[in-house]
């Protein structure tokens, strides 16, 4: 088994065993989305109209907050030092951790989004498109969030710093994600263009995220 696979499997094992964070992201997503109607009011028509936005904001917050511990645990027990001494380039190691994180945290978000959409009175036929936008966009959120996670380990600060650093960077993803979802539900505007741009953002983040995160880790951990 090569280094990439073994790191992927290890991170997924850690997330799914007791003490890991696998379903916590999905739970947070659920709670945030449930809280929105308490603030907005139970008007179903209104909720249906802003449903995609609520779901996207919930997914964004859930993805980001779950990234907090991504590097912290490895840094605290000395694993991060050793990961930097392997033959796998640090960029790839970091990307592997991001993939494992998305599989255990991001993918569950995509899977429960339709159920939550139901509670927000989003039309049934749109549920699939909504989930598709989340499927294309949550990897971008994870890989961009990676940069913040690396920076907060390097700077030895936690929690909110990560959110402050990363949220501005995720604005394009949010815009195009909600645009694509709305296009599918209401839209005179076609679904294609915003969705394609969303995919492009994700693909770019696969490259930029690991490089920036690895650089942050190297410079920060001295």
């Amino acid at each position, binding site marked *: 088994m090569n280094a990439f696979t073994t790191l992927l499997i290890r991170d997924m094992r850690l997330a799914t065993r*007791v*003490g890991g964070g696998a379903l*916590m992201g999905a739970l947070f997503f659920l*709670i945030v989305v*449930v809280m929105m109607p308490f603030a907005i009011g*139970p008007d*179903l028509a209104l*909720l249906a109209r802003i449903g995609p936005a609520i779901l996207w904001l919930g997914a964004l917050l859930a993805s980001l907050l779950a990234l907090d511990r991504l590097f912290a645990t490895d840094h605290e027990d000395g694993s991060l030092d050793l990961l930097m001494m392997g033959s796998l380039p640090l960029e790839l190691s970091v990307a592997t951790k991001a993939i494992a994180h998305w599989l255990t945290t991001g993918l569950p978000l995509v899977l429960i989004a339709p159920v939550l959409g139901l*509670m927000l*009175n989003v039309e049934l036929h749109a549920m699939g498109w909504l989930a598709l936008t989340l499927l294309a966009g949550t990897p971008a959120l994870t890989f961009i969030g990676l940069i913040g996670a690396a920076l907060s380990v390097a700077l030895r600060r936690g929690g909110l710093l990560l959110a402050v650093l990363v949220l501005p960077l995720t604005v394009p993803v949010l815009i195009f994600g909600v645009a694509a979802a709305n296009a599918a539900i209401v839209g005179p505007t076609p679904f294609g263009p915003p969705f394609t741009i969303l995919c492009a953002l994700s693909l770019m983040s696969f490259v930029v995220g690991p490089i920036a995160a690895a650089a942050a880790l190297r410079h920060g951990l001295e």
Partner: protein
Amino acid sequence: MAIVDLANPTRFLNVVNRVLPWLAAITLVLFAVGLYRAMNAPDDYQQGATVKIMFLHVPAAWLGMFGWGLMTVAALGTLVWRHPLADVAGKAAAPIGAAFTFICLITGSLWGRPTWGTYWVWDARLTSMLVLLLLYFAVLALYWTAEEPGRGARAAAILSLVGAVNLPIIKFSVDWWNTLHQPASVFRTGGPTIDPALLAPLLIMAIAFTLLFVTLHLAAMRNEILRRRVRAMRLMQAQELAQVT
């Protein structure tokens, strides 16, 4: 035999092992009777046969709340009376109560679709049950992230108590915030408004479900005790080997 005698886990296990098969048998019998009565109950003049979801939905709602009540008592047992099996009781009750709450929400949603035309509304009663489910998830998350059984137990007990205090507040505030769902039809000051032909099967099913809860709960407690024993033995094994070499 007083409750105090059951404080000893081994004695508890012995009692449970003897009692459980009987409990399970009685539960099955009651379910058979209840389902038979439910199937033969008359259809509602408005809703038709759909009303029979009630036989599943209403007991599930009661047991979801019962579960949290049980957790509250267990929490008091852990924090105040220091009963050794209290935290086991609380931990065992949480998933079962959560499952019943979840069943209540799902059956309610499926019942709502033909009756109200929608799967979900943000009405007071549904919302408070949803919040109850979220509280259950919170406690379960606490148990899941605690690596040692003991550490999660006190935190979960505190959360159970806070939840118990907060549940009426939530209910009140959500009522204030909104009221579609049918008001109380059984536990009312005027007496039940539900037709006796539907009431009897409902009560039988409720008792059957309650016994199911108790059976599952005792079995879950037994599993948790055994799980902790396995863990303790493995810890001892590791410690012994630390001394040998």
